[in-house]
């Protein structure tokens, strides 16, 4: 954190639509040059937040601060919008050439022809679509269209992206993601991005904000949010696959044992006896073995069980098993082969007590 004020700040921001509160954010700050992702289910308020920051929606209450100054009067709206760029989920292009499309934003600002030509060329070059200059915007692929939409923005001070990759197929998404990442890092553009995809968020962002029902539940660096979800909702959303409710039955100094569906599972944390807790176990932290290892490992939790289902997910496989309680593990294809894992197979699952993230049920938020 440097000493200068955050480029964007939000205070007691509320948006009411059709009588219901769709956005309620007491505070949010965005540092200059950072990439902040907003993740959450449909209707969480991500789009509303982005459009409010773009000043396309007027908040019902609260203030938005841009570079330390309140952005609330009507007069500065136009000027503000020209410094802040927003890209929507479906590329909304005009029925004309790519050149005319990208030029339109500049024409609006009253730029002259020669300068427009120069800047359009630069923008298209940046996104690798210079060859599309004179093509009809209706005759390009989805990925190219989205690049054009991104090219609309000319050195914005803040870039707002509303699920920019969700309408693309995986390979296109991958390529665009990579390009965008390098451009954003290079230009150090402050970016707010809404997305469904946790992996995207994880990859691109400096920080992730998890939203639900108009509120921000947690915001922080990806590792923090993903590995230390503040509550069940965040946990399930960021991809903790195994969530097990239980009750503390024993304490051993820094660690404790909870009864989970009749089984004893050891974890680490500050709890009270009899307290209700929820264990969050990331699938990456679950190890499978076909024969129980002769050597003792440091894993305190070892449970025999049976594989219920194997789902291939590209780079790895998701293995759902039942070992007295449902458990999900990620296993590489390599390992799958080596251990000859198959549905119905008996395996032994183990995970470390330290890898369990403990959430106190309906307790306080840390």
């Amino acid at each position, binding site marked *: 954190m440097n000493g200068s004020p955050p480029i964007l700040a939000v205070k007691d921001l509320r948006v009411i639509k059709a009588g219901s509160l769709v956005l309620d954010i007491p505070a949010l700050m965005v540092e200059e040059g950072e990439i902040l992702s907003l993740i959450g289910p449909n209707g969480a308020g991500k789009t509303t937040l982005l*459009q409010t920051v*773009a000043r*396309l929606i007027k908040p019902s209450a609260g203030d938005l601060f841009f570079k330390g100054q309140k952005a609330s009067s009507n007069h500065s709206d*136009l*000027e503000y*919008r*020209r410094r*802040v*760029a*927003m890209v*929507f989920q*479906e590329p*909304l292009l*005009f*029925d*004309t*050439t790519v050149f005319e499309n990208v030029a*339109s*934003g500049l024409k*609006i*600002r009253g730029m002259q022809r020669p300068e427009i030509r120069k800047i359009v060329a630069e923008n298209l070059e940046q996104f690798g679509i210079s060859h599309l200059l*004179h*093509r*009809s915007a209706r*005759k390009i692929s989805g990925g190219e269209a989205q690049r054009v939409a991104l090219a*609309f923005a000319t050195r914005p001070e803040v870039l707002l992206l509303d699920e920019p990759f969700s309408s693309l197929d995986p390979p296109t998404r991958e390529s665009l993601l990579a390009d965008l990442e390098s451009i954003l890092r290079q230009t150090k553009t402050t970016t707010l991005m809404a997305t469904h995809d946790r992996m995207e968020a994880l990859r691109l962002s400096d920080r992730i904000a998890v939203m639900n029902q108009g509120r921000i539940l947690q915001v922080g660096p990806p590792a923090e949010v993903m590995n230390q979800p503040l509550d069940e909702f965040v946990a399930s959303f960021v991809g903790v696959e195994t969530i097990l409710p239980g009750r503390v039955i024993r304490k051993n100094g820094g660690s404790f044992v909870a009864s989970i569906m009749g089984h004893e599972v050891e974890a680490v944390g500050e709890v009270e006896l009899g307290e209700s807790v929820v264990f969050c176990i990331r699938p990456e932290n679950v190890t499978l073995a076909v024969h129980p290892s002769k050597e003792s490992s440091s894993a305190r939790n070892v449970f025999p069980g049976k594989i219920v289902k194997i789902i291939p997910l590209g780079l790895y496989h998701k293995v759902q098993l039942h070992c007295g309680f449902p458990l999900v593990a990620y296993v590489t294809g390599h390992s799958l082969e080596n251990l000859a894992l198959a549905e119905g197979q008996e395996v032994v699952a183990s995970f470390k007590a330290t890898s369990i993230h403990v959430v106190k049920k309906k307790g306080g938020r840390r």
Partner: protein
Amino acid sequence: MDLILEGILKAFHLLITFDPEVMGITLLSLQVSGTATFISLLIGISIGTIVALAEFPGRRFVVSLINTGMGLPPVVVGLFVTIFLWRNGPLGFLGILYTPAAMILAQAVIATPIVMGITLAAIQALPKNLRLQILALGATRLQMVWILIKEAKLPLLAGVMAGFGGVISEVGASIMVGGNIKGYSRVLTTATVMETSRGNFDIAIALGIILLLLAYFINLILTQIQQRERPR
């Protein structure tokens, strides 16, 4: 059958020899309907766009009014305009009854709801977020409206053609408010009716053919504009 043939020959003859009376009638048809369409374009597109984009109480009622207006019987319009323009009527002081100006007025009243209704539908058919996107680029409201109108160029021009088509072929209102005065307020449609009632079928058919040609020619130009510049 030979009547139609006679008519075609007559039409040809009138056109080739630039028969002054027919030329005059044709030019007047073009002037009157052209001006009326132009007026309807200005009012229709602007109001149609506003109603399409704005939210206000009673909007649905206004939209249904516009849609009804599209089907206004021209002869009823003619009747009401005549009554208004009578010497002793509310607009009598204008003194424009039985002049081409009155015909332009009546035709504009007929064409405007048509253009308005089609504009309304065309603008509403644009993607909902397009408006936001344009605003997000930093456009003023006026710039946004202009860009949206350009985006809807195809259906809007169809609306203009519908408006023009409606008035160039209109006869009831034109006779009532214009008086079909020779060399002054006589246009192709009113002249056709007159020649028919006189029994001069060949002239009537000839005028009809000239009217069709005129309408086709104008729509050709408008279609060019509508379909022009579709990039590869």
